[in-house]
């Protein structure tokens, strides 16, 4: 094992371009994570691989930056009163089991259909989950914004909260009382998705909102606790195999620690439904991106035929659209913050006093 590790860790030389790329993507990924609780990893890993970094080193080094970023984001948002630590830890426990099952499924697919089969499975999971969940999140955000921006607890969450199935857990900060049994599938699915597409929050946050009844502010902040627990466990595992390139981790961290705090501050400037707008938008664009990659993997498996040039173009468009997804999310966050800050400044400005001049 160690020989393989040594081969894989023939770490690349870092030039200014690579450093700038990692710092900027780290910053934007951090901004999005601080705001919606997850994101960034889906662009960072393929982006790092395109710099010539071996896949395993890219995943390991990326994960090792993810948990301290999540820790700092969770700490900031805890201070703003948005984190339910108990909710995050309960979810993280079942998510850890979900990750293990997700890895086993990946291994079985890899053994049966090889690399292309595994890639196809990942892409199809991306498309299916992101279209269904992302579509609903986006629709709900649009509905909420039309009704003035006030969030409502879903009928499903109200129904589940009313079922008295011991043990019942009270999440004080989230103001949710629900059976442990209903939290397990949500946490498990979060872990499964994290093991498959590296962004468990795309199921975890909507799950906490629509199934458990937490607000989007509490759900996105508590997701950072889950990301910390899962990221920490994963990083220790990768580091024990010597796969973490600490230089890459620290460069990404330099950008993401600045971004994650901006994202966290941003949540206090905007209306709550903006979290859903950003999340839904990113999920739908990423779904399109992964959808574009499906024909490439089907060709690799021999199911269909595409010219080599067409495959290269599709791969490139797919990566660019993923980067667009992240940037769009960042632009919406910054735009909403800008509007929020302007509105705040207007509130502080005293109303003009008109003095009638004597005739």
């Amino acid at each position, binding site marked *: 094992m160690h020989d393989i590790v040594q081969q894989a860790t023939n770490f690349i030389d870092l030039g200014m371009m690579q450093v700038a790329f990692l710092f900027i993507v780290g910053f934007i990924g951090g901004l999005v994570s601080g705001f919606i609780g997850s994101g960034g990893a889906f662009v960072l890993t393929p982006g790092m691989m395109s710099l010539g970094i071996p896949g395993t080193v890219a995943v390991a080094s990326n994960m090792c930056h993810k948990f301290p970023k999540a820790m700092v984001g969770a700490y900031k948002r805890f201070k703003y009163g948005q984190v339910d630590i108990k909710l995050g830890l309960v979810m993280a426990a079942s998510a850890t089991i979900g990750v293990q099952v997700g890895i086993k499924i990946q291994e079985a697919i890899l053994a049966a259909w090889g690399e292309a089969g595994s890639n196809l499975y990942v892409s199809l999971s991306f498309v299916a989950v992101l279209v269904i969940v992302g579509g609903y999140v986006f629709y709900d955000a649009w509905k909420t914004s039309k009704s003035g921006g006030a969030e409502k607890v879903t009928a499903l969450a109200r129904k589940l909260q009313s079922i008295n199935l011991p043990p019942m857990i009270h999440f004080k900060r989230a103001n949710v009382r629900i059976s442990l049994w209903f939290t397990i599938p949500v946490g498990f699915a979060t872990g499964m998705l994290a093991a498959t597409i590296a962004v468990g929050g795309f199921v975890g946050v909507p799950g906490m909102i629509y199934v458990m009844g937490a607000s989007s502010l509490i759900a996105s902040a508590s997701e950072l606790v889950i990301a910390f627990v899962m990221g920490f466990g994963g990083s*220790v595992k990768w*580091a024990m195999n010597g796969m973490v390139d600490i230089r890459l981790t620290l460069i990404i961290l330099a950008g993401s620690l600045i971004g994650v705090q901006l994202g966290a501050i941003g949540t206090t400037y905007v209306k709550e439904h903006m979290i859903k707008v950003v999340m839904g938008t990113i999920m739908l664009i990423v779904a399109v991106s992964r959808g574009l990659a499906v024909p490439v993997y089907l060709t690799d498996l021999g199911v269909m035929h595409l010219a080599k040039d067409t495959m290269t173009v599709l791969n490139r468009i797919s990566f660019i659209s993923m980067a667009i997804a992240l940037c769009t999310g960042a632009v919406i966050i910054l735009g909403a913050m800008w509007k929020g800050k302007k509105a705040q400044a207007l509130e502080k400005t005293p109303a003009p006093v008109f003095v009638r001049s004597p005739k």
Partner: protein
Amino acid sequence: MADSQGSTGKKPVGKMISFGIGSIILYAIVFSNEGLVTEWFTKGKWFAALPIITVFIFSFVHGTFASYLWSVLGLEVVKKK
């Protein structure tokens, strides 16, 4: 990590500069000893503690710098009524 100053308080410019310098020193130490750091940090097994402890230290120093940076730039938390 540090609490940023309230919007009415003095901007923590000195603290931001101190933690910024601390952060630069930490990065300089790692990158000027790139070869040695990479060799020890990838030995695996119990040496896994090295990258983990390192990211915690960087998170504290660089994270505190980032917190003061936004504060100095005038971005403070809005307390909604």
